[in-house]
């Protein structure tokens, strides 16, 4: 489910009692119930029932995930709360490997009998699927890690903050937008806590407590006389953090830029004020003249381009064809990787995959098949050097172990390969955004996540943004509108001629990357510094429908 539908489905005109329809949510609970914890010893006892039953029924490998998934979301518009959700989903998912074939079953009935019975069902499904097996699963070895735990390093648990305080913050942002000229504003705060217990027949018993937060808004301006409307979304990033993300810090100001940006603290109210002013400015902004421009892309925008054009095509399951019927395949075929010289981008393009980065959405201690979090190069000096793998894929690219990219969005979803944080590395040389802009003769400076579309093998893409500024002779000269750029992934990354240093490095994120059938959502971050791309094709998106 994409973000728009997520908000739409729980929004206006629908009774609050519909929230249970959202796959991301489970049962509605009282806010304080979110703070209760399940005892680790109890979870181990339940997990062992499944592991023993699986072994007894002939499984060569089994893993168990006992998950308690908490979601809290507050949706507002102008002066009112549209909806609130405080939900819990709790249950157990059991995956078994029998005669080389996977089977999976899940239940929310947590009795010993139910867990044993569900394990039996998983074994039966594995045996049933065997008739369509073409090659047995090869599972990369992973030494058991014993009893361990990992927590997102948060300063303040967002679930402990009173709901009234959160509503006050959203209302303050709404009021600030309205008093600065907005016609409408919607704002939302979403919080996630995944309490995951993983156990497998390798001897791992892993208890994890994972937190994510996403504050966002849309400010809209309407000019009824002209029949035109404009909007601007928040420049926040969803983060793997606690409520401390919303402790307003000093904005990050790029020299010469008219826009305040944010790093590890986000000021919702100040950004809402800025958005309302920028919406007014958009009505009089210059409509873009189509043509070739040098683009200077801020991390609030570039993150999504990295996600779509680097993150997805380096997912090994896509490369192999497992996603052919839904998300698609990939242009980064194995022969390109094997050649060791496939020129994905310019020499400045260095992309790292990482499941351990602090504050990121993809950070964990261990993945959903017990593999420790790690970091590795995907693109090195512009060359494709690696993919993203899980345990049953590692052998395909000659790896002795998985890279730890396995994830399921719920206890009742089957875990599979998902994107780790995939980030563009900053310039090792000292280089500011001001330095980048100074060298551009005819360009566009783009911020924020806008419209995005890319083909099923990740060649051709088109991206929009939230804010566009014209650069002329090294200076930002005014706001533009109706801008989208089209390119081909390899051409685009080879046109990257400049990137700012680590001072400018910031995380972009998405809460709901969709993949798989039935579709599962996953949250992932993409870090980068501002980068410059030369001679990119820009189109004008204005149309008339009378």
């Amino acid at each position, binding site marked *: 489910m994409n973000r728009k539908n997520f908000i739409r489905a729980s929004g206006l*005109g629908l009774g609050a009692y519909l929230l249970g329809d959202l796959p991301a949510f489970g*049962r*509605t609970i*009282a806010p304080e119930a979110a703070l209760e914890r399940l005892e680790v010893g109890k979870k181990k006892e339940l997990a062992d029932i499944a592991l023993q039953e699986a072994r007894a029924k002939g499984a060569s490998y089994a893993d168990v995930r006992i998950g308690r998934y908490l979601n809290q979301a507050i949706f507002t518009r102008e002066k009112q709360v549209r909806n609130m959700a405080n939900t819990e989903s709790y249950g157990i998912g059991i995956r078994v490997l029998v005669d080389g074939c996977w089977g999976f*079953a899940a239940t929310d009935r947590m009795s010993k009998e139910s867990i044993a019975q569900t394990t039996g069902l998983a074994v039966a*499904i594995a045996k049933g*699927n065997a008739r369509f097996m073409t090659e047995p699963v090869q599972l990369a070895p992973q030494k058991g890690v014993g009893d361990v735990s990992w927590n997102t390093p948060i300063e303040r648990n967002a679930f402990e903050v009173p709901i009234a305080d959160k509503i006050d913050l959203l209302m303050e942002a709404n009021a600030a937008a309205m008093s600065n000229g907005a016609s409408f504003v919607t704002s939302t705060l979403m919080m996630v806590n995944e309490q995951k217990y993983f156990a497998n027949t390798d001897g791992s018993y892993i208890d994890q407590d994972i937190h994510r937060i996403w504050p966002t808004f849309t400010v809209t301006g309407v000019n009824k006389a002209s029949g035109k*409307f404009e909007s601007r979304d928040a420049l926040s990033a969803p983060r793997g953090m606690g409520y401390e993300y919303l402790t307003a810090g000093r904005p990050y100001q790029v020299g010469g830029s008219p826009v305040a940006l944010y790093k590890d603290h986000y000021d919702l109210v100040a950004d809402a004020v800025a958005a309302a002013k920028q919406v007014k400015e958009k009505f009089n902004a210059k409509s873009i003249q189509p043509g070739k421009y040098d683009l200077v892309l801020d991390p609030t925008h570039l993150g999504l381009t990295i996600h779509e054009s680097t993150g997805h095509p380096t997912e090994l399951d896509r490369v192999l064809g497992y996603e052919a019927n839904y998300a698609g395949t990939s242009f980064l075929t194995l022969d390109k990787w094997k050649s060791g010289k496939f020129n994905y981008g310019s020499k400045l393009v260095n992309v790292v995959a990482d499941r351990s980065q602090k504050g990121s959405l993809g950070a964990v201690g261990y993945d959903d098949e017990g593999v420790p979090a790690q970091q590795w190069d995907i693109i090195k000096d512009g060359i494709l050097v690696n993919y993203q793998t899980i345990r049953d894929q590692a052998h395909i690219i000659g790896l002795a172990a998985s890279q730890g990219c396995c994830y399921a969005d719920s206890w009742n979803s089957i875990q599979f390969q998902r994107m780790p944080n995939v980030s563009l590395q900053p310039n090792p040389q000292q280089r500011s955004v001001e330095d980048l802009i100074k060298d551009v003769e005819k360009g566009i400076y783009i911020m924020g996540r806008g419209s995005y*579309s890319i083909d099923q093998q990740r060649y051709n893409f088109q991206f*929009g943004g939230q804010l566009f500024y014209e650069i002329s002779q090294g200076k930002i000269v005014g706001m533009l509108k109706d801008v989208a750029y089209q390119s081909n992934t390899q051409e685009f990354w080879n046109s990257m001629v400049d990137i700012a240093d680590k001072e400018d490095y910031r995380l972009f994120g998405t809460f709901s990357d969709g993949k798989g059938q039935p579709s599962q959502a996953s949250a992932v971050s993409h870090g980068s510094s501002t980068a410059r791309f030369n001679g990119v094709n820009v189109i004008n998106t204005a149309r008339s429908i009378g």
Partner: protein
Amino acid sequence: MAILSKEEAQAILKKVIGYSTSDECMVSLRGAQEGNIRYARNAVSTAGESSTMDLSVSAVYGKRVGTASINEFDDESLQKVVKRAEELAKLAPENPEYMPALDPQQYEESPTYVESTAAIDPLKRAEMVGDSLAVSKADSLEAAGFLNNSKGFRAIMNSKGLFAYNKSTDVSFSVTIRNQEGTGSGYVSNSFNDVAKLDTGALSKIAATKAKTSAGARAIEPGKYTVILEPLAVSDMVGWLARGFDARSADEGRSYMSKKGGGTRLGEQLFDEKISIYTDPTNPELPSATWDMEGVPVKKTTWVENGVVKNLEYSRYWAAQQGVEPLPFGAGGRGFGGGGGLIIPGGSASLEEMISTTERGVLVTRFWYIRSVDPQTLLLTGLTRDGTFYIENGKIQFPVKNFRFNESPVIMLNNVEELGKTVRSGNILVPPMKIRDFTFTSLSDAI
């Protein structure tokens, strides 16, 4: 346990309402049993089954609403969930848009439940996937597909005595078939309430044929072309129109249905006169519940007639504000579920006949990764996928490389040359369409 009869559901809901002490109370009960198989590289990759049932209670004091839900159904659990909803309601901020519970309503019957679909078991699913794999293997092609079936029920009751119940079945199938070299790809997808209408083997043959005939695509210049959109491609585009029928967004000036100078485009000729759009929850090809989640009856409604906007959707709140009757879009809702049950009546031409009368054009199997570029004009971008062909002198000449398009379905439905025969495509009923001046803006190497 997951599928309760009308009487069983009513008994539980009555009991829950009986425990309530709040000013108003609304209860919703639903259950579903679902099963699926996913396959790729000509082998099953995952399979699963799930069964769920839960009850949701909304308690109301004045304009304060609290909601709680539960998946246990003994008396003690039912009392607990009511109490929790009432506690939450007392803590909740007032909702100025809260509308009082509706009085009991009358609903039409709709044929949403088909016994043979409800009876699908893992063996039947495996057989249906086997029929699909047999096609790909016989031609040395590679299949990746997904088969999903479900049966479920929903019931609602409120403290004024309103009660509604519906049970339904669904089976959905899609498959992508590619050649071994990766130079050709075909796709089919459809959903039905009645599994008897689904032939996975026959559909897979269509995908296999497209995989073979789309190989070796040639590049032709992007630009404006006459296109023949197969029903799948049409549904990919026109599903986006449904979002605009919300009267509130239109009145507020922030949708393509908003009018210059204020107000909405109600009564305006917005599309070609060949285009009519309606929804009908009792249509036997696309049945859905005849009530929405507040209990408002959902009836056959004409949204567009001969290109003129005839109706907009009004929530109960917005209808009260505007002094009109509430008008729900449908049980599926707008904007998600792929168009919420839109029906566009077509003509009698077959796809072959439409091709035979085309001098120069492009045949599009489907679109992919469609996103809104400008909500003001409903400009969308996306790409063709899984079978795009060049037509000249009434014949398909050769496969062409995929295109990116930038086009608005509002503009597209003003450029209608011909409509074919209406069929079900996912959750909407549409004809194939011949459209002039469809805007392709760049080429893609993707296959």
